[in-house]
C-alpha cells in the first residue's frame, strides 16, 4: 500500500499571516475609497444636469460634518493607495533603459509619486481659482 498522503494546508485567513499580505489587503481595500469618491463626483454631475437648485442642494449636502469627515478619511485612504500603487509599479512594467542603464525601481516610484503630487496640486489650484 502506498504510504504517501500529502497534506494540504488550509488557506483560511492567509492574509493575516504575513505583514506583507496585510499591507496588500489594505492597498486593495483602499481602492474602494477611490471608487466611492468617483461615485460622489458622478452623483454631483447628475445633480448639475438637474439644474441650479439640485446642484446647490448637493453642495449644501457636502458641507455636512459627516461628509467632511468622510472626505478626510478618503484623502488618507487614497493617499495610501497612491503610495502603494507606485511602490509596486516598477515590478509591473517593462524595463526602462535610459542611457544604456536600467532605470532603478526607486526612480520609477519617485517619478510616479512626483507626477501624482504635481497633478493633484495643479487640479487643486485650478478648482481653487475657479471657486473664487
Amino acid at each position, binding site marked *: 500500500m502506498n504510504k504517501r498522503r500529502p497534506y494540504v494546508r488550509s488557506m483560511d485567513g492567509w492574509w493575516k499571516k*504575513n505583514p506583507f499580505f496585510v499591507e496588500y489587503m489594505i492597498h486593495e481595500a483602499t481602492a474602494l475609497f477611490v471608487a466611492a469618491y468617483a461615485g460622489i463626483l458622478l452623483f454631483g454631475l447628475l445633480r448639475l444636469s438637474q439644474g441650479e437648485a439640485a446642484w446647490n442642494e448637493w453642495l449644501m449636502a457636502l458641507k455636512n460634518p459627516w461628509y467632511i469627515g468622510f472626505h478626510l478619511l478618503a484623502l488618507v485612504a487614497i493617499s495610501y493607495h497612491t503610495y502603494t500603487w507606485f511602490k509596486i509599479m516598477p*515590478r*509591473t512594467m517593462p524595463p526602462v533603459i535610459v542611457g544604456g542603464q536600467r532605470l532603478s525601481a526607486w526612480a520609477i516610484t519617485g517619478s510616479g509619486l512626483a507626477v501624482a503630487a504635481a497633478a493633484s496640486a495643479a487640479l487643486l489650484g485650478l478648482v481653487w481659482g475657479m471657486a473664487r
Partner: protein
Amino acid sequence: MSENQKVIEIEVLRYHPEKDKEPHKQVFEVPFTDDMSVLQGVQYIKDYLDGSLSFRWSCRMAICGSCGMMINGEPSLSCQTFLRDYYPARVRVEALSHFPIERDLVINMEGFIEKLESIQPYIIPKEPRTLAQGEYLQTPEQLNAYEQFSSCINCLLCYAACPQFGLNSSFIGPAATALLHRYNVDSRDGGKAERMELINSEEGVFNCTAVGYCSEVCPKHVDPANAVNQNKTNAAADYFLRFLAPKGGAK
C-alpha cells in the same frame, strides 16, 4: 558542551503520513554558534535529537535551491538564514506554504515540475541550423534582456509567497513564468508563439493580482513579479492583435 553554550528553541512542523492525521508542532532545544544557519540547526536535530526528521538540502550555499522552508512564516532558504538573528526567541520552521506536505519539511513539488516542463524551458530555434553556421552571437543588450530571469534556481520560495497560487494551484506561478519569459525574450529563441498560449490561458498570468511578495523573497533577484506582469501586457497585445493577424489560441 561548554558553560556559555547558547541554546535556541527550534519549533518544527512535523508530519508523518503513516501515523499523523495532520501536522503538529514539536520543539527542539538546539545548541548553536553564531555561524550556524537554520539548515545546520535542523541538521543538528536530525543527527543528535530525532533521526526521523525529514528535509531537503544539498549545497549549503544558496545555489541548489533545495532547502527552502517557511522560517518564522517567511519563505527562506534555510542555508542563508542564521539562527543568531532569531536568538533568544524561538524560531519556527515549517514546510513551504501552498504546497502539499509530503513529510515534515518536505513538500510535494510534482505540480511545479509539470509546469516547468510545460513552458518548454529551452531554446526553440527560429530555423534549423547547421554546425557550419557556427555559434549564435548576442550583443550585451540582448543578454541583458533575459539574464536576470535565467538566475532562477527553482527553490519555489516565490510559490510559497504567492497567495494566488495558494488559492489556485493550477496557476502557472512566478518561477515558471519567469523562466518562460527568459526564453521568450532571448534573441536566439523562436518559441514565443507556443509559450504565449500558456501565458494567455486560464492558468496564465491573469491569476496574478500583483501582490509582489514573490519578488521580495527571491534569493536570486529574478523579480518573477516583473516577468508575470510584463506578460499581462504581452497577453493583452496578443488578444487584440489576433483580430489583425489571427494565430492560434489559448490553451
